[in-house]
């Protein structure tokens, strides 16, 4: 009897959690297929009476969606490369050597992860404006690179630590430099972690909003999150089918990345602390 109650409770919890998670995504998805008239239906329809793919196509043409995509990709890729370029060496030495200020270095780096964008964006705006670097996805990429360094350093350090240093040392006894040992021995061994960290950084840069919305001004300079946020106001305010089509174009790459990094997600988002 008691076991049955538990079974029913678990079932209810499962149904609730699945609906809670998937219903908004489902509803957003089918809204993008609704016609201009159907989005105003009362009650709102849960299954469109007729499916139209019209809006999935038209959003590529009546707003600079292509430019949004291009800018988001540029900013994301640059940020990932920059973050990795800075954090791989730091992660390596912090994993392999214990030196006097190591804890301070690591904690300072981690603290920077939690600084609110709003608290630093004003001077960055003024600074980039003076250098005529506003509106450039490259500037955004360099900035996102800095923001994601803490993730890179902490997570990669946790992966590097799992590789026994003896592997490198025996390789170095053969006369190779530490650099060669790192590239030929350690780097291939941490490749799964490296891929996961890169994709997580890419996804986080992809969705960043507050910096992007302030540091870009012209339609051709904006990223996807800023682009979709602009559909909220103005003449597009009620055109939910278009808004949701664009939103899904912004989401789908992230979902693909999510499935690839699924196994490393907990570790990647907790700075390597939770395995």
């Amino acid at each position, binding site marked *: 009897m008691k076991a049955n109650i538990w079974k029913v409770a678990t079932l209810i*919890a499962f149904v609730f959690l*699945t609906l*809670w*998670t998937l219903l*908004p*995504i489902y*509803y957003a998805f089918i809204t993008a297929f609704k016609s201009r008239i159907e*989005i105003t239906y009362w*009650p*709102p329809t849960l299954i469109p009476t007729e499916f139209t793919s019209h809006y999935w196509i038209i959003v590529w043409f009546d707003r600079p969606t292509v430019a949004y995509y291009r800018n988001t990709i540029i900013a994301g890729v640059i940020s990932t490369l920059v973050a990795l370029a*800075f954090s791989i*060496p730091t992660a390596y*030495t912090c994993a392999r*050597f214990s030196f006097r200020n190591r*804890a301070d270095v690591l*904690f*300072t*780096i*981690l*603290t*920077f*992860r*939690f600084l*609110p*964008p*709003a*608290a*630093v*964006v*004003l*001077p960055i705006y*003024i*600074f980039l404006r003076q250098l005529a670097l506003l509106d450039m996805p490259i500037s955004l990429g360099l*900035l996102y690179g*800095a*923001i994601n*360094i*803490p993730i890179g350093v902490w997570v990669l350090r946790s992966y590097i630590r799992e590789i026994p240093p003896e592997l490198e040392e025996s390789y170095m006894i053969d006369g190779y430099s530490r650099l060669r040992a790192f590239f030929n021995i350690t780097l291939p061994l941490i490749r799964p972690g490296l891929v996961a960290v890169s994709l*997580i950084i890419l*996804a*986080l840069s992809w*969705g*960043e*909003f*507050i910096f992007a919305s302030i540091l870009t001004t012209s339609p051709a300079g904006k990223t*996807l999150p800023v682009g979709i946020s602009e*559909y909220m*106001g103005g003449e597009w305010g009620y055109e*939910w089918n278009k808004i*949701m089509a664009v939103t899904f174009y*912004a*989401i789908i790459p*992230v*979902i693909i990345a*999510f499935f690839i990094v*699924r196994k490393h*997600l907990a570790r990647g988002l*907790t700075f390597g*602390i*939770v395995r």
Partner: protein
Amino acid sequence: MRTKNLILITTLPTLFYLFFWLFYPFLYNIFFSTFYYRLPRPELTRFIGVGNYISLFMDYDFYLAARNTVIFILVCLAVEFALGLLIALCLFREFRGIGIFRTLLIIPILLPPISVAIIWRLMIFPGMSIIDFITQTLLNVKINWMAGGLPSYIIVTLIDAWQWSPFIGLILLAGMLGLPPEPIEAARIDGASTTTVFFKIVIPYLKPIILIALILRFLDLIKLFDPIYAVVTGGGSGIETISVYIYKRGFKVLDIGYGATISVIFWIAAFLAANLIVRRFKEYLV
């Protein structure tokens, strides 16, 4: 000596780069905060010393934003922990196909927060949305979720909980999957009930991991912005956090001097909170 050089060339550039983007702006904000400086009227710029800080001290909207930030942190943490624990407990079960759920239920985590907020905006939009329909027909009340006040607080909390409860669930699940089976089995043999095992063995064992989940959420909630921005745009106000308030004063009103003043206070508060808390992770350093 060579090791020392290696350490210097691998850490200093990283620290320098971080300082450049995230500390140098703080110094610049201190500088700006001593000026009356509005972007549309640069000719009126003048040094006013602590003038902005005195205004801030008497600014009702600033206190409101600070209060809202604290409220959102506390309420979101509570809701997300409860839901996250439920998610973890469900996903901890073993049956065929659990892997699908362990992936599906945590999909929200990596999604761009602004797109999540916009999807919820679709769900609550007055007069044409599914949640509005449900409350109107089932509860027979007309709630404008975007007009500010309690409904907007609730919806912002729900948006944040939708995206981040799975994050807490994911961390707790990782902890539960790592539980050593022996003490639980031993307690079972001694006749302990499920509840006793849960509260006396599982929870104490998970304490550090629960703490990590809550700390990471807490530090992220300090900068809460996207869901509020999405709910407030074209709607009411009064639910702004500090981040949203800086955005409004700095970039809608273009009052750089005052925006910088709020930023200075906010930067110091966030830095101190993060640095003090993060140092608790010492045990994970070795």
